[in-house]
């Protein structure tokens, strides 16, 4: 149920993001979802890819600062109230959300939202009890 997310530290320097993406392209790694959080001096790029192990290997070899974090990916109905609906059970279960971002593609009628939370297992349980589909790791990489 947990999905491996790769984070990369990027100085705010032109071309750095391009270099990360070129590095992944050379290794034939496909980016499934991404988000960037930024401050004045640097940013953190977060990625879901089809082959996290390979991505991690090549990025470390190219001397990027990388880390791996577990996140969850949830199918959320693509309709008004969809997002509110998925947040409610997490709130009830006292799960703190650090950040979220969405997949570019949809899976059928649903959007896929990535959650980075403090209490992973609690969150998964709360979502499943609320009737949400928490995606399996291999399905996420295959989207």
């Amino acid at each position: 149920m947990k999905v491996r997310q790769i984070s990369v530290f990027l100085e705010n320097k032109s071309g750095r993001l391009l270099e990360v993406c070129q590095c992944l392209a050379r290794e034939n790694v496909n980016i499934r979802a991404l988000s960037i959080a930024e401050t004045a001096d640097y940013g953190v790029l977060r990625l879901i890819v089809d082959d996290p192990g390979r991505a991690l290997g090549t990025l470390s070899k190219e001397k990027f600062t990388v880390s791996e974090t577990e996140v969850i990916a949830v199918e959320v109905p693509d309709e008004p109230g969809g997002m509110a609906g998925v947040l409610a059970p997490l709130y009830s279960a006292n799960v703190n959300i650090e950040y979220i971002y969405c997949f570019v593609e949809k899976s059928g009628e649903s959007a896929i939202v990535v959650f980075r939370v403090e209490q992973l297992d609690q969150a998964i349980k709360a979502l499943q009890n609320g009737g949400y589909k928490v995606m399996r790791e291999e399905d996420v990489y295959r989207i």
Partner: protein
Amino acid sequence: MEYFNSVEVMERGKLDDLKLERLGASVDRLYDKVSFYKEKLEEVGFKPGDVTSLEDLKDLPFTYKEDLRDNYPFGLFSVPMRDVVRIHASSGTTGKPTVVGYTSGDIEVWADLVARTIVASGGNPDDVVQVAYGYGLFTGGLGLHYGVEMLGATALPMSGGNTKRQIRMMVDFGSTILCCTPSYALNITEVMQEMGVKRDEIKLKSGILGAEPWSDEMRVQIEENLKISAHDIYGLSEVVGPGVSIECGEKHGLHVFEDCFIAEVIDPRTGEVLPAGEPGELVFTNINKQALSLLRYRTRDITRLIEEPCPCGRTHIRMERVTGRTDDMLIIRGVNVFPSQVETVLMQIPGVSPYYKLVVDRVDNLDILEVQVEVSSEVFSDEIKRLEQLEKRIGDEVQSYLGLGVKVRLMEPRSIQRSEGKAVRVADNRKI
């Protein structure tokens, strides 16, 4: 081997007699041979034979770096050029280079001094000594080299740079002692890891590291990373080069070889000699050098002298490791900052790499000190708030140590330039 030359353990009273005898002869000789000194000595009413006690030294004139430059290139030499067998010179990045000369006797004394430093660092004639200080006009490379040969150990004259080759040779030739700047020792460690060279492939046991100020925390880092005993060596070309003083196994201060140099610590503002133990500017007087012998040379290095006897048995006085040069000192919003102070703070924060740079700028008439630090994978987090906490922690700790607010900038690994000699730690972009 406990020491190289028996003079290192000479009884204190005898050592002082030797110092006095050599000081008197040295000053008289300068009066006689160097017009610059004759003039200066006459200004203070000195006449040959006047030095009758070591106390008399404090009344003699200082020599400044500018004096060497004003008398460029050979004006302060006290022997004819036919007796000079070697010239060294500083890089001269801040003006004319400082030129120094040696007679063949000077070279021999210098080699003896360096041999003493190698033994004090745990070396003996069986060692293979990799000299990774630059060979050339800089005194580091050739200075160490002659000392290794004087000791009868094996010199590996690598000079600086070409780090991968340094490591291959270290593996293939079984180097046991590494001589280089501390920042280069760190660089070598890092490249060794990249090359996948394991610790048991090298035979290194100690490092003779110097030519730039470094902190005790940096020593711990180097000793842990390379699994060696790291010894601080001190010297400056004006006085002789490396070999003026060295840390023995006690690693509590560096023994100044007093049979060749008299050390004083003065108040840099008033020029008054400070009581032993007080920090101030280090001043050296050559008492066993022929070609270029300096009287009360102002080093601009800040340290203090330790008079207590050392358990190692050497009777020569110790100086605390130099943590800063008045030249490197930054004055930011009225606060004196030495790069080594920032280093001390950074090394105490887990996961912070030893690579850092200080960038000073003036924005709207206010000095800003930016501390650039590399983010290792160890401390990197996908959460911005954790990175901000790290920035804040570094900023807070530097502030509480220096009493100065700084801006911390997290950098990508390897984005701060690696040193192959003297590390450049400061960029002062202020236009004043």
